[in-house]
């Protein structure tokens, strides 16, 4: 048979066969991918509608021609693929296909063999689709990933410079003003003591800020891949780190059940530690009580850390997550104003949200979400 037009010979097929053939033809003709049927030498015997739409060539333009003219600079590739068909029934490759109007596009091409009952190859079937946009998207993604990686590296370097080079002169200022204060105590006047006190205090606060800035920058630059994390263990580690403060303040920490999920364990520890440290720091006159737990709600785990401390006024609910924002003077409560900023960055990094509910004088409840894992088997 050398053409596929369904012959109108009623006697040759049963009505059902005829109906089936019509359906098959419609399916092939209307297929989203371009389809070419050739003989074993590659001469085109049939093309579908998508072929014409993708290449600009009509059926009449190409019938009888060898399909190698369609493939830009890939004559041998096609030949090689055809040869391989003797061993493997199915070949896939990416080729440039020439459009009738002169341009060309990148296509994913599949070459298959049609075999007779005697297992001889009678025809080749070529299916192809235009992957130009897909390839552009891939290239763009690769370019952005490279850019992001470079940007992260720069940040890491900056963080290292800040950590080392800034602290050196800082130490000199702090150490020698303290040395002067100690060495000349009583020999200088009271003003001198006061002035030196401010200088030392400034240097020490600068140190704390630099450390916190570093911690903030490291949330995104120094990450480990998410892994199975027992959030109870992350919380326990945070509590261990805060052991002294917990003892000193006589704090009571209550933990509910906590899930296992996909996360960065050390970042979660930092997150819990900052929240609980705040809960203890901003305690009221009562001995502090902190409750931590989590609930599964609509595909995400909602964690809470609630305290009975001094609380926060609603107008500050958003502000407290910004950098260097403090609601008290440093005499009242120490701190750099970065703790919650780091918390927010960690939660963002995990694809979650963080917010607070509170009333002045009635404690504060911090909530954050982490998406639950897609798989059940964690």
């Amino acid at each position: 048979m050398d053409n596929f037009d369904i012959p109108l010979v009623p006697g040759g097929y049963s009505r059902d066969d005829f109906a089936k053939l019509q359906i098959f033809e419609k399916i092939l003709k209307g297929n989203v991918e371009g389809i070419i049927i050739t003989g074993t030498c590659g001469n085109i015997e049939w093309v579908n509608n998508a072929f014409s739409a993708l290449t600009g060539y009509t059926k009449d333009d190409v019938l009888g021609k060898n399909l190698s003219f369609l493939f830009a600079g890939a004559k041998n590739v096609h030949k090689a693929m055809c040869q391989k068909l003797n061993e493997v029934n199915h070949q896939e490759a990416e080729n440039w296909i020439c459009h009738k109007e002169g341009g060309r596009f990148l296509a994913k091409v599949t070459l298959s063999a049609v075999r007779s009952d005697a297992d001889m190859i009678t025809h080749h079937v070529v299916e192809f689709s235009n992957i130009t946009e897909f390839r552009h998207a891939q290239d763009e993604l690769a370019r952005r990933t490279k850019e992001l990686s470079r940007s992260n590296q720069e940040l890491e370097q900056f963080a290292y410079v800040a950590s080392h080079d800034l602290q050196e002169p800082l130490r000199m200022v702090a150490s020698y003003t303290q040395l002067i204060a100690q060495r000349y105590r009583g020999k200088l006047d009271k003003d001198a003591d006061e002035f030196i006190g401010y200088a030392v205090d400034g240097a020490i606060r600068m140190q704390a800020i630099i450390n916190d800035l570093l911690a903030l920058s490291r949330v995104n630059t120094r990450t480990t891949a998410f892994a199975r994390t027992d959030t109870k263990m992350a919380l326990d580690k945070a509590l261990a780190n805060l052991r002294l403060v917990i003892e000193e303040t006589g704090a009571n920490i209550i933990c509910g059940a906590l899930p296992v999920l996909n996360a960065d364990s050390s970042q979660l520890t930092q997150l819990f530690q900052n929240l609980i440290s705040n809960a203890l720091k901003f305690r009221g006159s009562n001995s502090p009580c902190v409750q931590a737990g989590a609930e599964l709600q609509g595909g995400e785990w909602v964690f809470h850390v609630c305290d009975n401390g001094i609380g926060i006024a609603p107008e500050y609910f958003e502000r407290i997550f910004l950098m260097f924002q403090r609601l008290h003077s440093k005499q009242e409560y120490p701190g750099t104003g970065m703790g919650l900023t780091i918390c927010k960055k960690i939660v963002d990094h995990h694809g979650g949200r963080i917010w607070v509910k509170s009333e002045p004088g009635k404690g504060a409840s911090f909530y954050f979400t982490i998406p639950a894992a897609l798989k059940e088997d964690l």
Partner: protein
Amino acid sequence: MNINSLGRPADFLLVEDNPGDVRLTQEALKSHKVQNNLHVATDGEEAMAFLRRQGKYANAPRPDIILLDLNLPRKDGREVLAEIKSDPNLKAIPVVIITSSEAEQDVVKSYNLNANCYITKPVNLDQFIKVVQSINDFWFTIVKLPSNPQ
């Protein structure tokens, strides 16, 4: 005056390019009860010359302990550490890295190069003094060192 476990003043080699830190270390060691002599090299080349008793250091004593900063001009502290710990005549000398860097990569690299320990210089003066005095206490009243080094 406490004599340390060596029975004589300990010889410290401090490798540090910042004169402010040199002076602070001097002050810290001076005020301490345990007796010691402080020798100073201000860059990596000078440190190696001292250790190898070259040139003007021909009569230098073999230090009982080396306090080594990491970021030094000419020869970097990490190179000095590597050289000391790969030299059969020098590698037994305890090397205490004392640097402003807190960077994890520096900590890891130093221990991999066989530093005896790694200390980050405290910002607070009192703590700095305490740290230097602790080094003195630990290595010369608690730790046992070889009694007859070459």
